[in-house]
């Protein structure tokens, strides 16, 4: 958490509505993410948080509303535009290449940085080799940062869940993102692993200035590391503000604890 007063808005979503047939995943949701902040998206299960991330990323296309990223307004994001624009993400259920090693998985995150064509890369000589070495150096820094040297060559399918999540974070970091979308990065972790993950997220935010949008269920983590929080419930935004403001908000409390109907 930091006391930046930078008001520059990196991403803004305006009146987003997303439906799958009769299921309204998101209804008229608007919020913004400021450059360099840690923005948490929270809400009960099924509130539409992952859908929101998928809209930002370009996996889902909203029926209504606009997405403004780095000043450019769009009615929908395309995944390759998002990637080229510096948006990287992790997934709730992990989407790593299970047969490849940790190193190779993270190297795939450098894909947008590598430009030599298929022919040169297949031969792996000259400029393609130089490029690979440069990118390997960057990836080694990421491995060092995440303290995963010991599993560098291990096929990720063999790794425990918590480590897989860390490798996925590594792959996202390798893309040198401007905006990092994290979908429940701490799910299934014990206290020590959560503290490590929080440390990595904060370091990424503070050291590299990466803006972070985070979906998370652990309230203590959310309260500790977020600059601002947006709360969704049944596809609608019900609160938006600092962690303290959101914690005290009655509709948020009702959404999580439930309200009895007489």
């Amino acid at each position, binding site marked *: 958490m930091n006391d930046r007063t930078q008001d520059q808005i990196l991403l803004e979503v305006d009146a987003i509505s997303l439906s799958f047939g009769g299921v309204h995943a998101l209804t008229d949701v608007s919020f913004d993410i400021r450059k360099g902040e840690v923005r948490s998206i929270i809400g009960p299960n099924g509130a539409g948080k992952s859908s929101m991330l998928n809209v930002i990323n370009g996996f889902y296309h909203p029926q209504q509303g606009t997405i403004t990223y780095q000043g450019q307004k769009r009615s929908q994001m395309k995944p390759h535009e998002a990637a080229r624009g510096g948006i990287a993400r992790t997934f709730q259920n992990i989407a790593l290449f299970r047969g490849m090693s940790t190193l190779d998985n993270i190297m795939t995150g450098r894909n947008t940085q590598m430009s030599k064509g298929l022919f040169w890369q297949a031969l792996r000589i000259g400029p393609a080799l130089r490029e690979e070495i440069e990118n390997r150096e960057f990836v080694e820094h990421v491995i*060092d940062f995440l303290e995963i040297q010991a599993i560098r060559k291990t096929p990720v399918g063999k790794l425990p869940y918590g480590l897989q999540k860390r490798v996925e974070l590594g792959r996202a970091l390798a893309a040198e993102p401007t905006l990092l979308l994290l979908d429940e990065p701490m799910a299934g972790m014990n206290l020590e692993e959560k503290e490590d993950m929080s440390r990595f997220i904060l370091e990424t935010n503070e050291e590299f200035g990466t803006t972070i949008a985070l979906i998370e269920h652990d309230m203590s983590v959310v309260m500790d590391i977020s600059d601002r929080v947006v709360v969704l419930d049944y596809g609608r935004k019900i609160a938006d503000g600092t962690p303290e403001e959101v914690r005290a908000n009655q509709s948020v409390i009702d959404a999580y604890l439930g309200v009895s109907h007489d």
Partner: protein
Amino acid sequence: MSDSTESLMGTFPQLLKVRLQRDGDRPAMREKAYGIWQTWTLNEFCNEATALAAGLSDLGFQRGETLVIIGDNRPRLYGAMLAVQSLGGIPVPAYQDSVAEEIQYVVEHAEARFIVAENQEQVDKSLEIKEHCPRVEKIIYCDPKGLRKYDPNVVVDIQEVMKRGRNALAKTPDLVDQEIAAGRLSDPAIILYTSGTTGRPKGVVLTHENLVVTAKNANAFDNITADEETLAYLPMAWVGDNAFSFAMGLVAGFCVNCPESSSTVAQNLREIGPTYYFAPPRVFESVLTSVMIRMKDAGPFKQRLFNYFMAVAKKTGVDLMDGKSVPLMDRIKYALGEVLIFGPLKNTLGLGRVRVAYTAGEAIGPEIFDFYRSIGINLKQLYGQTEATVFITMQPDGLVRSESVGTPPPGVELRIEDNGEVLYRSPGVFLEYFKNAEATSETKTDDNWVRTGDAGYIDGEGHLRIIDRAKDVGKLTDSSMFAPKFLENKLKFFPEIKEVVTFGDGRDFVTAFVNIDLDAVGNWAERNNVSYASYQELAAHPQVYQLIQECIEQVNQSLASDAHLSASQIKRFLILHKELDPDDGELTRTRKVRRRIINERYGDLIEALFDGRTRCFVSTEVVFEDGRRGKIEADLEIRDATVHQTTSKAA
């Protein structure tokens, strides 16, 4: 190369100045970082140390001062030791996984103003210490990760200090050389705090002479040359690492390799393939266990191949290693085994190039010891102490036994007092305990003999055998010796037995508490259709009792064959319902038994063992990991074990 090292003498900085002229471009230290092994030549290593020394001097470091070093094995940290020694100061390494409180004691006692910390974790601990120790002025770090926002007045990057040093050297080029020249062999080179099982840690002060002479003797003993490769993975605060990596390395000129991180040690071992290796018995045990477990999962052909050749190794391996004569047919079989099994196995373990391997610190199971020797790893035992600069006895090639710890190497004198205590005198004998004249005079006699506090005897072949800590050795009512640790170790060699406590001092016979090893016994239970729902249930199962009884009876049989020990056979035993735990105060953090606490807490059980009862009720308070307290109750069975007639060989 080895001829000229014999004439090398002086403090470490002085030694290195001489060696620089000849060996400047040889690799001195390596570290794996960012996936690549990065090398420091001797030139580079010494240049950095000099720059650091000048920087420290610029920060106000004085001759004779101490400086605390905390971190994993890193060339920069060894460089820091050298830098401090160059200025006539005394480095004090601390255990990197100690908590702040433990390190605080060292920092306070050593009166250190400066701390060199490897990374953010150690810096955080140092800052905590600084709050309680206002004397601490600067904390110098090596790895900048995570440290950007710390107060630069207190927390300083080592590169900054070296830069200051280089500026100072530009103005006064012989700033550091002058200090190096002023050093004497008798100056303290390092203070190593020994972890206390009783009372507070004591700071053992070793001089340059202690370390250099010991290193030379040790190098000569095993023909250590500048071509050796070692992996420095044991704590820098432990005298062994200082002797093997720092002292012997700098004197002989071989390259010391530092692992990438503590979790990559096994991989790095394989990559480096050291020629000289040390590990405590526990490590050798766990490696063997993992080999056996993986073999059980292998296909039937491989298993048969493995078992066949392991039998060949068992028969002839040790003899071959000792240079004894072996029939031709067996030699051929062994050679085949080397190609098919032993060679690849050693390679996987990273031990394929080991010329000399040592183990020490506690007793090693004879089967484990022989296993490694039989597949061609020259594993030997040594016995030592921090106060001796490690070496008291060593096993020379060809005279290796699993039950003894060897003979005194050249330079070391050995003596056994009437009460069985082992004393030694050598060029490695420490100078003193820092700021503790009383303890020093209790340990060192007037003519420089040191009391080890261990009881032992010289066996028929002239080798030293260690029995136990002298103060723990007791007597049965018939005056025969009762050495609890000796008996407990023999039983703990069985994988099913995790911990043992024996009782017999002032008693008619010996009895024992046993803790079963949950993994090993659980495994056995699965394979033998024994079901259980908890540790307590498994520990109370009659078939498990039978299993343990057989182990005890095996030990009894081996004890019966030695007149000294026959009276110590274990007559009655019980299996405890819960594991002895450091959290409950029953064991120390290094898993040594706290006899007084156990005597108090389990007094009833002990009485039941001696008065012949076959069952006893026990209720113990336990402390859970989060600090809550609870009670565990059980009704324990007590059994007799068969005791054998002395089939004695008079010793």
